[in-house]
């Protein structure tokens, strides 16, 4: 079955990080847009529908968690995956965020490429199912 080109947004202040995620997701068939600034990310999600957004937890102009909330507001169907070099899986901000459905998944840096792919597939699934109220999923360790 041919997959439509799902749009994925990557927001990370580290350009090489954007490169890495794009290098993983593009060959998997996704249309990847990258940005290093939270403000731009908000603009982008408002303009186009994105299946998923990989959001870095610490951004220069905006707190990653705040950005996630804002993206939810503007684009409720976009699945958000938090990616971070600051937090770890067991940190309270993460466990709470997952519980409250602020984001559907968390990836800690450094990561396995498969983790990223898995998260992307999860996002697609949810969109297809047309529901964001299912229980949160998080990538394995």
């Amino acid at each position: 079955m041919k997959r439509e080109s799902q749009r994925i947004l990557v927001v990370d202040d580290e350009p090489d990080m954007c490169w890495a995620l794009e290098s993983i997701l593009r060959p998997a068939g996704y249309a990847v847009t990258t940005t290093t600034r939270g403000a731009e990310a908000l603009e982008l999600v408002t303009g186009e529908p994105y299946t998923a957004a990989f959001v870095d937890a610490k951004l220069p102009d905006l707190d990653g968690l705040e950005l996630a909330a804002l993206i939810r507001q503007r684009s409720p169907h976009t699945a958000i995956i938090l990616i971070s070099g600051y937090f770890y899986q067991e940190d309270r901000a993460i466990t709470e965020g997952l519980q409250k459905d602020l984001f559907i998944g968390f990836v800690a840096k450094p990561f396995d490429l498969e983790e990223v792919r898995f998260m992307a597939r999860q996002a697609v699934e949810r969109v297809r199912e047309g529901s964001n109220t299912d229980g949160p999923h998080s990538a394995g360790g």
Partner: protein
Amino acid sequence: MDRQAMPQEPTSQLTLATLFDCWQAFHVHLDPEELAHRILEGVAQVTQSSRASLMLLDEDEQVLIIKAAVGLPPEVVATTRVRLGEGIAGWVAQNRCPLLLPDGSDVPASVRETMVREEITSALCVPLEVGERPLGVLNLARQGDGAPFMLQDLWFACLAADEVAIVRHLYNQVESQERFISRVVESIPSSLVVIDRALRIVSVNRNFLEKTRREAGATLRRKIKEVFPKVLVEYTQLDQKVREVFRTGQSVEGGRLAYRAPGLSTRFYYYRLIPLKAEEAVENVMLLMDDITEREQLGQEVRRAERHLASVVDSAYDLVVSMDPEGRILTWNRAAERTSGFSLEGVKGQYLAYLCVKEDQQKMGAWLAQLAKGRFTKKSLEINLRIKEGSEVPISWAGSRMLDDERRIVGLVAVGRDLTERKRFEAQLMTSAKLTSLGVMAGGIAHEIRNPLAISSAAAQLLLERPDDEKLRKEAAEKIGSGIRRASYIIENLLKFARPPEERMVPTDISDALEETISLLANQLRVQQIELRKDFALDLPPVVGNKGLLQQVFSNMILNACNVMPDGGGLAITTRVNSDNQVEIEFSDTGCGIVPEHLSKIFDPFFTTMPVGKGIGLGLSISYSIIQQHQGSIEVESQVGQGTTFTVRLPADSR
């Protein structure tokens, strides 16, 4: 003596011989009483008197008292008191005219009555006088059937009376001289003991008797060793010394002796032996003892006070060094010995400045010189002392000068405090503060390192998945390389920061140090959304200092800015050279500012307005201390609601 057998008529020869004998006797015995007796007897014998008496006038009561008598019962001798003018004697004494009775009609009736009553057939009364003063009378009386006295008897009696008068007078003079001398001797506060050749005590003054609690009777004519305690005589070798004085005729300065009279406390004396000479021969030796007990006690007290003071200086915890006005060491207390390892013998006479580390010798010398002049430039001076093992000890010196009563300088005093402990404590404080700031930075740094790690990891994994992708291979390899380089750089800076600082101060590039610190904290700034503006002067001169310590200060400045701008803001770091040839580094933030009441306290240790758990307020005080060590200064300006500017000034390397 059988008077009956004596010739009736005296001859001149006999009378003179008698007188001569009396004089001789006087010379031998030196006793006027004896003389009076002998003369009286002689006169009575020669004049064949049945009664004879010598009466002397008591000046105070103006009565005549019998001093010597022949042929009178003892009770009469003792009780007779004749007032001037009364009776034969009284009349004669008063009128100073001899009376020969019975003869002449001018004899008063009362006299005649007395004669009749006493059955006196003939009486002779002659006055004793010297000059105009009546001294007494000489009475002669014949009783019974004997012939009356004749003129010859009168003449002899007068002679005898004159002799007695003269002797009496002389004796009185001598006696009053003696009394005068005695009074003088008794008044001397010293104890006097006169000793003869047989080492017997001939005379003592009252002072001696009082001090030794002895009676004159138990002291005079006793040997020295019977009177003084045996131990004392042996210790002072008193016997030998007295003999020596007799032999040489020279005084001997004895020395100190202690004497404890029974029942009294010990007293101290200074004694001397002085020869009493008549012409060249030593007749007696006088032992003179001065009571120096009070002086001794005072001396002992002074010595005790001196010992106490010396002990105070010696027991002091700090180094106490006294020097002459030129700075050469005179005294060196125990703390100084302990700290430096040098004893007093080793340093006495040396310049204190030379004991300091080489590079500070001139500074110490100049400081002491200023002190000597009375100018106080610096309250205290921190200069390291060279110690025996060849290493050094940090000391904080405080100095003052010693003046005599005329306010002339007599010396210098320097008190030094060993700063080793303090420096160790400060180092510990700095370490713990460093750890605190490390903790704060940990979050930011973790993020810093995890990014390049993630990139390298992803790149490596991609390479494994797509080994044939040429473009990917190149890109990935580059990313891996740069990622690792970045991670290494961050770790390097972190280690440098965490490592203990090197001890020596070297010329340091401030811009360089700032850049490294900034890069360490860049992420912290980024995540807190603090905009950093750098304005570095291009030709900033180096500063003599310790890079690690200075970077601590810079990181403290930046972290403080972060703390006051939790919601973001701006931090401007500017460097420049000012007109005093100082390097200025300004840290300006747009935080909430510091209230004026806190401004003076912000450099105090443990002062913080941060909530619990967010820092214990050591950073600024340590920064202050570090900058001080660098001979620089930190100043702060602040406006509540607008922001704060810290200005660090450091002297540029002048070499």
